[in-house]
């Protein structure tokens, strides 16, 4: 407001009390800025370090050739991580396809059917699952899928990643739905609509930005997980015979960037170490691109 001041007091405080409050305000702001830097700086260091170490290995071959045996890299023949990049896309997107409907469904149970008997049980299990170490999720799928099917497979990896995503999506869905005003549900019910109809048609669309954010966070989290993949999709140095057929990745052992990054890093070859850093760059880019797309998708509404 720029109206006239009512009292005749000075605009600029001159009292000691006012100066102290002013100072305290500055200190608080300083602390908040400091905390923000503490969050940002490690991120920038990681990004800078990964990029500076891996950039040299990022060439055309990196995206078009598969890895093959270490002699390729050591002797300077063409080598790359095409099999890991393709595998990551297939395995991660399949995981998303599994986790999104189930996670949103579970979130709807948590938020919309609070009186249901399953609700408290689901809440406890969901939180437990969220806290469960990722390697155990891999072990679970190893026991339930890999052993019975007799083979490591990209699909098993997708299931393990889906379990990583599920509790995050469910919780984000619950949070987003809870923020939708109750009056919208009542308005729908008062029209004689069944409850599930009201939730799907009137409540869920309002919560969409929150849902998308939750799905993105879940995706980013799962895309960086190596542990659940070690026991499920295992990894592979080679592109499948038909590299454009997703089923080739899902039905056999498949390579993924985080798990490949790990195995390159623990290998004894310097050339592979550089490729490991480059894999890190690609992984970072993947997450950034997914986030940007998600943001654009939700911004269109407004």
């Amino acid at each position, binding site marked *: 407001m720029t109206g006239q001041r009512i009292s005749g007091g000075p605009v600029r405080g001159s009292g000691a009390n006012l100066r102290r409050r002013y100072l305290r305000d500055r200190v608080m702001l300083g602390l908040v800025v400091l905390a923000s830097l503490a969050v940002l700086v490690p991120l920038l260091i990681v990004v800078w370090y990964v990029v500076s170490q891996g950039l040299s290995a990022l060439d055309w071959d990196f995206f078009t050739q598969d890895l093959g045996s270490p002699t390729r890299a050591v002797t300077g023949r063409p080598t790359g991580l095409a099999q890991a990049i393709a595998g990551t896309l297939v395995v991660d997107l399949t995981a998303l396809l599994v986790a999104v409907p189930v996670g949103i469904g579970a979130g709807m149970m948590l938020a919309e059917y609070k*009186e249901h008997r399953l609700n408290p049980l689901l809440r406890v299990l969901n939180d437990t699952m969220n806290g469960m170490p990722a390697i155990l999720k891999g072990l679970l799928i190893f026991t339930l899928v890999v052993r019975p099917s007799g083979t490591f497979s990209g699909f098993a990896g997708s299931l393990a990643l889906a379990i990583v995503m599920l509790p995050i999506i469910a919780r984000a869905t619950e949070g987003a739905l809870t923020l939708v005003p109750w009056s*919208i549900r*009542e308005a729908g019910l*008062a*029209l*004689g609509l069944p409850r599930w109809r009201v939730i799907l048609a*009137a409540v869920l*669309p309002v919560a969409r930005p929150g849902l998308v954010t939750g799905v993105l966070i879940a995706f980013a989290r799962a895309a960086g997980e190596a542990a659940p993949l070690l026991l499920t999709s295992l990894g592979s140095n080679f592109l499948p015979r038909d590299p454009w057929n997703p089923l080739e990745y899902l039905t056999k052992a498949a390579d993924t960037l985080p798990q490949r990054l790990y195995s390159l890093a623990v290998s004894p070859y310097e050339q592979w170490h550089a490729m490991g850093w480059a894999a890190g760059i690609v992984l970072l880019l993947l997450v950034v691109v997914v986030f940007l797309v998600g943001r654009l998708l939700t911004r269109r509404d407004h």
Partner: protein
Amino acid sequence: MADPAPAPRIRMETRGLTVDYGNGRGVRDVSLRFEDRRVSALIGPSGCGKTTYLRALNRMHDLTRNVTVTGAALLDGEDIYAPGIDPVNVRRRIGMVFQKPTPFPTMSIFDNVVAGLKLVGVRDRDRLAAVAERSLRQAALWDEVADRLRSPAARLSGGQQQRLSIARALAVEPDVLLMDEPTSSLDPAATRRIEELVGELKEQVTIIIVTHNMQQAARISDVTTFFLDGEVVESGPTDLMFTNPTDERTEQYVMGRFG
């Protein structure tokens, strides 16, 4: 001498209806009759239970925990709380308009109006378009939105949104329309439009309206019921209630002495 007028048809009726929140509040033992083609106003001070009672008339308490409804609420003689009655079917016949406008914010004006039909599987475009126009005309909104039916409902003004909520409720052709202080968040001009609307709509639908505004009750209703502390004090023709009430408390309230 002309024949005496036929006895008016009772559209809705409650017998000993009690809504218990488990904390002593709520409404107790309310027996009222609502005649077809009449506007009934429920008045009383804040917290007297009139809204609680209204919400019991289309089972809106069903989703609230720790609320028990006892007694009977009859729609055309059938108890809507009887076992085996689906509240969804009850609400199809008994619509409701709320205190605050409640358009579905992500839907267009058109989709809002026909939501009650479209979302239960009515796909016939011509029929939906006809229903949308009829309902919007009934709600006196058609002229203002006819050229932008596809634009988001959230962009309408508050008064328009409330008329949209009314149009949406009318689109499913309810027998009874419950209105819970439908003008309390509107300016005087929008309030007048809604009041005029109520007068026009009563030819087609039985209206029960909760209002805090005594003048409003006097202007638009045929029958007025005065609630106090969860009970009905008095119910009767509106002109009598405002000029010559039987109960002293009614007189004090309508004179503005308390509440």
